[in-house]
């Protein structure tokens, strides 16, 4: 479970810098290291999603 979690990428909403789960857990405070914005979102994984048009 931890190896799967490590591949998840999070992204700062303001400047777009990406972090992995590991980097985030190592940070003292939950904020972007580049611009200091405290809102992070989950970056869309680079997988082509197949959806049925039904």
């Amino acid at each position, binding site marked *: 479970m931890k190896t799967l979690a490590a591949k998840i990428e999070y992204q700062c*909403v*303001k*400047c*777009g810098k990406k972090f992995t789960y590991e980097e985030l857990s190592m940070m003292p405070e939950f904020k972007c290291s580049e611009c200091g914005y405290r809102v992070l979102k989950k970056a869309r994984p680079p997988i082509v999603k197949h959806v049925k048009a039904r």
Partner: protein
Amino acid sequence: MVEFIIPVRCFTCGAVIGDKWEEFSRRVKAGEDPGKVLDELGVKKYCCRRMLLSHVEVIDEILEFSKFKGEIKKEPW
């Protein structure tokens, strides 16, 4: 009915009505009688008429909230 964006087809009969929304809402906002606009657009069955007549285009308001205040960093795919 309130939908995000105008449905593509009439719920009851399946006739395409999505392409008629923009002209319909523009003309009704300008003050024309909705019944007359529907007649001129060729929307005859009342199942299709209610699709346009009672639609609320909510996506316009939602888009206001998706506006990005900072600089948009674009990533090449």
